Structures are given as C-alpha cells and as structure tokens.
C-alpha cells in the first residue's frame, strides 16, 4: 500500500518561563561569575501580558500572519497587540504555573516538588488540559524547604518565591544532574502540550497514532549513553498514544526537517499510517543573549520555551492537508562542500531542477525563522533576511531574476523572522502552520522549507548540514504532476 504523504495538522506552543531563564546555559554561567546579574536579568524580564501581546509570539501561534508582522514597526516589544490573547489558530501560550504543572504531570520519577499554591495555580491554568491533571499536586512550603535543603538539586522559583525543587537523580552521574533533568523534563512537558493540542485539533484519536518522532535537541540518557535516549514514547505515553512506538532523530537544528521527511517516507511506504513529529522547548537556550539585551536596554526576550508537533499521514485523511513532495526532498551531501553556493545549490536548486521548476515557482520559502529583534542586539544580525538575500542572489546567479529584483524576491517570497531562538524550533518549520492555513484558503500553492544545522558545534566535524522539502496544496500538486 502506498499513499501520498501530507502534513495534515500543525500545532505550536509557547510556555512562559521567566524564572527558568536563570537556569539557561548562558545565564547560569554568567550569574556564577557575577551574582549581581540575577537581579538585573529578573528586572528585565517581561510580564505575562506583554509576552502574550508580543507580535512575533502572536505570529508563532497563528493569530497574525508573518506578512502582518512585516508591517508592524520595530521595536515589536513596544508595539504590542492590544487585543491579543494566548489562544491562537494553531497554537497557544501558557503561563509559567501551567508550565510547572505540565512538568509535574510529566514527572514519572518524583524528581519535581512544587508547593501547594503553585500546584493550585497550575491546575487552574491547565483546566482545559486533558491528561493526568490529578498528578499536579503540591506540598506545604515547610516541606518544600526541607526537600530543598536536604537534597541535591535546583531551587525553582515563581513570583519571587521558592516554589519548587528538582532533585538530582544520581549523585555520580552528570547525565542525571538536576540541571540536565530540568532541560529534559521541560522539553518533554512542552512537547506534551503541543502533541495534545495537535490531537485535539485533529479528527483522529490518540490511539490512531502509529509512530512518534521527536526532533528536540535534549540529551536524554544516563552516563552510559548520554544523548542516546529517546523522548518520543515518553511524550506519547502522557497523551495516550497507546498504539504508537517512536524514536528520536538528532541532527542539530535541521532535525525537524529530517524528521518530517522520514515521517512522510514512513507513510508513503505504508510502514505507518499516522506519524507525529514533535519537538519540545530548549531550556538551555533561555536567556542565551541576555548580555546583549541588558547592554542595549531591551527586555530579556528569550523568556519562553517553544514547542511544536505535526501530524503526517495520507493526503486527505484528516481534512485538507498539504502534500509532502518526497520526490523533491533536498539534501546537502557530505561531498558538496560548505560554501553558501554549494549549500543552496544542493538544498534549493537541485530539487527544483529535478522537478523542472524555477526558484520563482516557489511561492514562499521558509528558512531560519529566528526573530531578528532577539538576535540583532548581540550583533548576530537578521538571520532570516541574510538567508533570503542569499536565496535571491542564487536566483540572480541563475539568471532567473535581475539584480534589481532581489528586494522584490525577498519581500514576496520571504517573511520576517518570528520564532524564538530555540535551536531546532526556528528551522523553517514555524511556517508550516501558516502554510497550511494559506493552502486551505487557496492563497498558497507551493512552499519550500529549508533547514540548516551546525554540525561543527559538537566538535566532531567541520561540516554543516542542510535538508529541505516542498509542500503543495493538493490541487496544485495534481496540476503539476
């Protein structure tokens, strides 16, 4: 049996985590050096209502189109959307108590202790969450203090008070230190939210899911297989995917695109009918650029964990989806070389040439969708813009457009970055929800999702990675065939 694979649904979540920013990899090291930084960081964090009303966040959850963001003047953190709410067309934002509550209900090893007040708040904020809510229990503050004083681990805060504690699971295993478990539990909890919302939005039941593919970047496992473990089944267990198994795909930031291609291949080959690709938030990256934000007098904007989930199955099986053109998947092979030209030729041009298409036959490109307002203060520039300019230059080299048309190409086929700097999250895939909506409306025929991964960060190779795929509106796909 073979089917045309499609992305049938998409779901995104942002979990406000101001009191976890201090445990981001960068803040924790810097605060260790200069403890006075903690107060400065906390003083520059945004309250919940500002996070909700922040235009890029509204784009991430689907209440604003990327095109609308382009017309909102910067700085976006000052030009907030007054009427904004936390529920979006294909995503939502949750409060910090809800995040702690999700972590608590995901905790199968009694790692996390929270106080009763936080548990109550969490329960109230998760009133519409369907799974394991009875597990959100708290202890009285005296008991929490005792746990915190007598165990190895990390104090957790809310509203300026000690409100929780996560313990180290093994005193001689760095892979099970509280800081690592916090990263893993945060990733699991936020992925659970995205998958739960995905299933709710779908006509399928949790039991219909056959396979789960986690593409998050967290290193799950103990000291004998650090990073070799999997989160997929751990997430599926919480949301009731009782008929699914799963595995994780690791490929730095490009993992989501690898995972979606693999999921499509599983569906096309008939190995599995319904596959969920999921990715939880990156706690290590919270506050990553806080130094630049403080120096520039802007809010510390890396204050949310982001997560996402996608349902891949046979085209048309769960309403209107968008077809995954597996025949046009792009890859950056080892032998291609790492020059930008080589990368874009293999990732973007080669699949198009194979299909007899030109670069202007793609209505929208989704590249690294990092929010420039987060990256620019640190001198890292506007990453999506650089990527779109490079694509436009590629079209010029191929004589598809003239030099004078580059700005037009970027404006028409690109979009401003709107995703939080959460590693694998921004890599092209934040656009999939918007693409799905646009295709359902009939205003988009074909989009290309392009992701790159910095393999060299692990010090095992100097190579970069890249993968791409094309999605099409089913009617458009039929015309082209």
């Amino acid at each position, binding site marked *: 049996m073979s089917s045309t694979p499609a992305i049938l649904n998409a779901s995104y979540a942002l979990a406000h985590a101001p009191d976890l920013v201090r445990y981001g990899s960068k803040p924790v090291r810097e605060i260790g050096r200069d403890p006075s930084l903690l107060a400065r960081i906390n003083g520059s964090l945004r309250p919940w209502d500002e996070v909700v009303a922040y235009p890029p966040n509204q784009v991430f959850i689907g209440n604003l189109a990327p095109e609308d963001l382009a017309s909102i003047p910067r700085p976006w953190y000052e030009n907030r959307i007054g009427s904004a709410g936390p529920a979006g067309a294909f995503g939502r934002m949750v409060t910090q108590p809800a995040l702690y509550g999700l972590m608590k209900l995901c905790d199968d090893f009694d790692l996390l202790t929270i106080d009763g007040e936080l548990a109550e708040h969490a329960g109230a904020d998760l009133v519409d969450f369907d799974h394991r809510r009875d597990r959100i229990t708290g202890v009285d503050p005296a008991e929490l203090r005792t746990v915190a004083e007598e165990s190895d681990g990390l104090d957790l805060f809310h509203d300026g008070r000690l409100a929780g504690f996560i313990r180290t699971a093994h005193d001689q295993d760095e892979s099970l230190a509280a800081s690592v478990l916090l990263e893993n539990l945060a990733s699991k909890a936020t992925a659970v939210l995205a998958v739960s919302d995905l299933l709710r939005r779908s006509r399928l039941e949790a039991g219909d899911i056959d396979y789960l593919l986690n593409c998050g970047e967290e290193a799950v496992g103990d000291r004998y297989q650090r990073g070799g473990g999997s989160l997929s089944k751990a997430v599926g267990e919480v949301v009731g995917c009782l008929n699914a198994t799963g595995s994780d795909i690791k490929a730095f*930031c490009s993992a989501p695109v690898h995972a979606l291609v693999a999921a499509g291949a599983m569906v096309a080959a008939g190995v599995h009918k319904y596959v969920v690709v999921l990715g939880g938030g990156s706690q290590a990256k919270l506050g990553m650029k806080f130094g630049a934000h403080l120096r520039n007098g802007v809010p510390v904007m890396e204050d949310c964990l982001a997560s996402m989930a996608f349902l891949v199955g046979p085209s048309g099986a769960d309403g209107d989806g968008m077809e995954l053109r597996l025949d046009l998947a792009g890859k950056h092979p080892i032998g291609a070389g*790492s*020059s*930008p030209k080589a990368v874009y030729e293999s990732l973007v041009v080669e699949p198009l040439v194979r299909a007899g298409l030109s670069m202007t036959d793609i209505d929208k490109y989704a590249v690294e969708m990092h929010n420039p307002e987060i990256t620019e203060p*640190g001198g890292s520039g506007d990453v999506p813009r650089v*990527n779109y300019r*490079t694509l436009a230059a590629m079209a010029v080299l191929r004589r598809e457009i003239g030099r004078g048309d580059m700005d037009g190409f970027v404006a028409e086929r690109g979009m401003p970055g709107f995703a939080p700097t959460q590693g694998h999250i921004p890599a092209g895939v934040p656009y999939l929800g918007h693409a799905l909506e646009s295709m359902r409306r009939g205003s988009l025929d074909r989009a290309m999702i392009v992701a790159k991964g*910095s393999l*060299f960060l692990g010090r095992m190779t*100097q190579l970069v990675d890249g993968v791409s795929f094309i999605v099409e509106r089913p009617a458009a796909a039929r015309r082209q065939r």
Partner: protein
Amino acid sequence: MDLNGRRVVAIGEREGVTGPSLKLLAESAGADVVFSVTQCFV
C-alpha cells in the same frame, strides 16, 4: 595588506563564509592559517 606569509586567524560564520572556506581562500593567497572557526549565533 599582503596575506602572503602571514599568520591568519580566520573567523567565519555559518550564514556568511565559514571558517574552512576562509582557510582555503587565505591559503590560496599564500597565508598560513593558524586558527579557523565558524561561529553560529543561533
């Protein structure tokens, strides 16, 4: 600046020209690349 015979520190970027690319280029100009790195900001 004549690169020939110079010791070059190459600081590249993933979204621009990478460290290994800068190394190749500098060597083609006769430089001795003593350090090269690719920065990734995201």
